[in-house]
């Protein structure tokens, strides 16, 4: 049991170490990867995911607004729905929802495709060609997540606020202009950036976890399935832990 844990820890640390080395090769232009793959991975992590991110964020905005309105209506303060939705989306839900969707969508698909490559000995074939699988597979995925997550997060923020506005305007007769004025009055750039920074961290978490479980998977069909499940579960757990750490840090720093 303890030996198992020890081995796992070593294997994670080894993976992280190799990834850092690969990144230093990437930034000095020595990493080996194919531009075509980078583009494909980039498409998967950004443009191809916008639809689902929008849909979920819109619904989250709607839900937040309805739940908030139950309380706020009693005080005749429905206009504060705008504050609630705006703050919640920017600081928390934008980044969290984006990351959880991406962990289940693109992260899972990365884990499965890398695990399949491992099972087919494709990764061994890379190694015998002298190409580091980390350079070739992990770095492009991590980079495209680091770039795409903040964008998706911004999209999610905006669509979520829109969702809140739809509720405010349609159910409580707040004028759209008044709603957005109220939102802008309450939220500021700090809230926005906190969400954005978080999304970058979450992007790193999701991509590393997907690649790690993919590369370390067993060479069986079951191994591929397990890699996918583990990647999603671990991503989500780590996202929430990381978010909690951010919550503590921001409250200690008073931002």
């Amino acid at each position: 049991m303890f030996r198992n844990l020890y081995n796992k820890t070593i294997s994670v640390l080894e993976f992280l170490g190799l990834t850092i080395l690969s990144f230093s090769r990437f930034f000095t232009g020595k990493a080996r990867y194919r531009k075509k793959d980078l583009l494909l991975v980039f498409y998967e992590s950004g443009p191809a995911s916008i639809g689902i991110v929008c849909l979920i964020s819109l619904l989250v905005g709607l839900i937040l607004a309805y739940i908030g309105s139950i309380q706020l209506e009693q005080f005749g303060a429905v206009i504060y729905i705008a504050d609630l939705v705006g703050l919640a989306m920017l600081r928390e839900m934008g980044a969290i929802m984006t990351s959880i969707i991406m962990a289940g969508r693109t992260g899972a698909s990365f884990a499965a495709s890398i695990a399949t490559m491992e099972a087919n000995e494709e990764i061994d074939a890379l190694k015998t060609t002298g190409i580091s699988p980390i350079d070739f597979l992990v770095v492009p995925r991590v980079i495209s997540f680091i770039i795409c997550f903040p964008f998706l997060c911004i999209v999610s923020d905006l669509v979520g606020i829109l969702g809140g506005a739809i509720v405010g305007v349609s159910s409580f007769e707040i004028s759209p202009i008044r709603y957005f004025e109220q939102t802008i009055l309450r939220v500021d750039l700090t809230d926005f950036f906190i969400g954005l920074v978080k999304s970058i961290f979450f992007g790193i978490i999701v991509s590393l976890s997907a690649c790690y479980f993919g590369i370390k998977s067993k060479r069986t069909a079951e191994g591929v399935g397990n890699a996918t499940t583990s990647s999603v579960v671990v991503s989500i757990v780590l996202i929430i832990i990381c978010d909690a750490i951010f919550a503590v840090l921001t409250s200690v720093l008073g931002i």
Partner: protein
Amino acid sequence: MNRVCLNIENLTMKYEDKLIQENLTFPIYEGDIFVVMGGSGCGKSTLLRHLVGLKRPSSGKVFIYNESLWDLDEDKRQDILREFGVSFQSGALWTSMTLKENVSLSLEEYTNYSKNEISEIAKQKLSLVGLSGFEDYYPFEISGGMKKRAGIARAMALDPKVLFLDEPSAGLDPISSKNLDDLIIKLNKEEGVTVVIITHELDSIFRIGTNSVFLDAETKTMQGYGSPKELLENGCEKVRRFLQRGEL
């Protein structure tokens, strides 16, 4: 006598705690077509993984031109391994790339040829294994035997000094299989490529093998070393039985 190319000393191979083979000691000479024989599951592919730097020996050493493979630092090891071409038992083609891209990748990485030249070389390597016209196919669009041959073309891309082939003719029809033997002999004779080949095809073993080793699954160690013809005459009983299809 030729120079020793690979020297295996007291090699013991394990998966976790499971012993696969122990105390393997034998040289592979430059210019050999070296056959690794043994029953299914005895550890031939595992031996190959140890020779091409994919798996660390549990104990013992693998010397490549007098350098101990696993005592070198990573960069040096990569430099040595670049002289090797490896084709895997499963083909192991990169499924997201066409056959031509599969063959081209190492050329793009390690040579300064232009795009057109690389494309020409890739085409030529594919034609060597009878895959002309399939350059732009993806691995899932071709048959098992074709995958295997494409894997061999990929292994030959950089004109390696040592070529490792894991059951290259398994799953090939007799004619393709004979063509493959011819190709191996040609590479060996004309370009001096050392070939380490795992195969069960007796005809092929006797036709192309200049030297060989027999791994035994029961005793978990090697049971014979020498040219296949020698082993057929003077090898121990197990080896002779293997070489006569069990009819002894």
